[in-house]
């Protein structure tokens, strides 16, 4: 289960809306599995169907997390024309076994889908999301 504050959820959704129709992506860093620090990342692909963190930005952010004793608790990205479910590409590149993979869909202008998954060794497991005030 992912427990996440409504404030962080709103930030992820706002980022996804702002970058639509391109996919948006980023990280929520934290400790002991608690998502705390919102880090929007640049989608180096600037694409409506693909995302990739910029390699230098990722290096800086990962080093910073290391220094602060944090981990990537949430890795999020948006789907802009399809449902908030991991694609085959999402599964093949999933490389943080400890992370909650959050998917947001912005295909509907008025409604947002916000879902979370574990992706381990090619297997997708959806998990409950608890929104904290």
């Amino acid at each position, binding site marked *: 289960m992912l427990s996440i504050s409504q404030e962080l959820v709103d930030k992820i959704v706002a980022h996804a809306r702002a970058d639509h129709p391109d996919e948006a992506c980023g990280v929520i860093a934290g400790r002991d599995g608690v998502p705390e620090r919102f880090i929007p*990342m640049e989608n180096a692909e600037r694409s409506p169907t693909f*995302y990739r*963190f910029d*390699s230098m930005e*990722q*290096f800086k952010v990962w080093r910073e997390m290391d220094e602060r004793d944090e981990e990537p608790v949430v890795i999020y990205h948006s789907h802009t024309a399809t449902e908030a479910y991991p694609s085959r590409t999402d599964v093949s590149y999933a490389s943080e076994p400890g992370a909650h993979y959050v998917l947001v869909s912005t295909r509907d202008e008025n409604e947002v889908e916000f879902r979370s998954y574990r992706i381990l060794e090619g297997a997708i497991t959806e998990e409950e999301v608890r929104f904290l005030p």
Partner: protein
Amino acid sequence: MAIEVRIPTILRNYTDGAKAVNAEGATLEELISNLESAHPGIKDRLVDQGALRRFVNVYLNDEDVRFLGGLGTPVSDGDTVTVLPAVAGG
């Protein structure tokens, strides 16, 4: 002295859980071969058909080796090599 190689979580099963290991070599390619002899299987996760895998980022100190010289990048004692799987998807 040796070269410190920082290992990402997903590859630590090759290093008995170690976050960083030491290796030797004059180029990144030699370093990876040296790494492979101590941690069999790891090379295949980094290199494919003679080039770095597309979705694996390797940094020499603070630079992405793609902008330096790929596998031919010279390395020397005291350097730090960091491996990070690219965060990507569709």
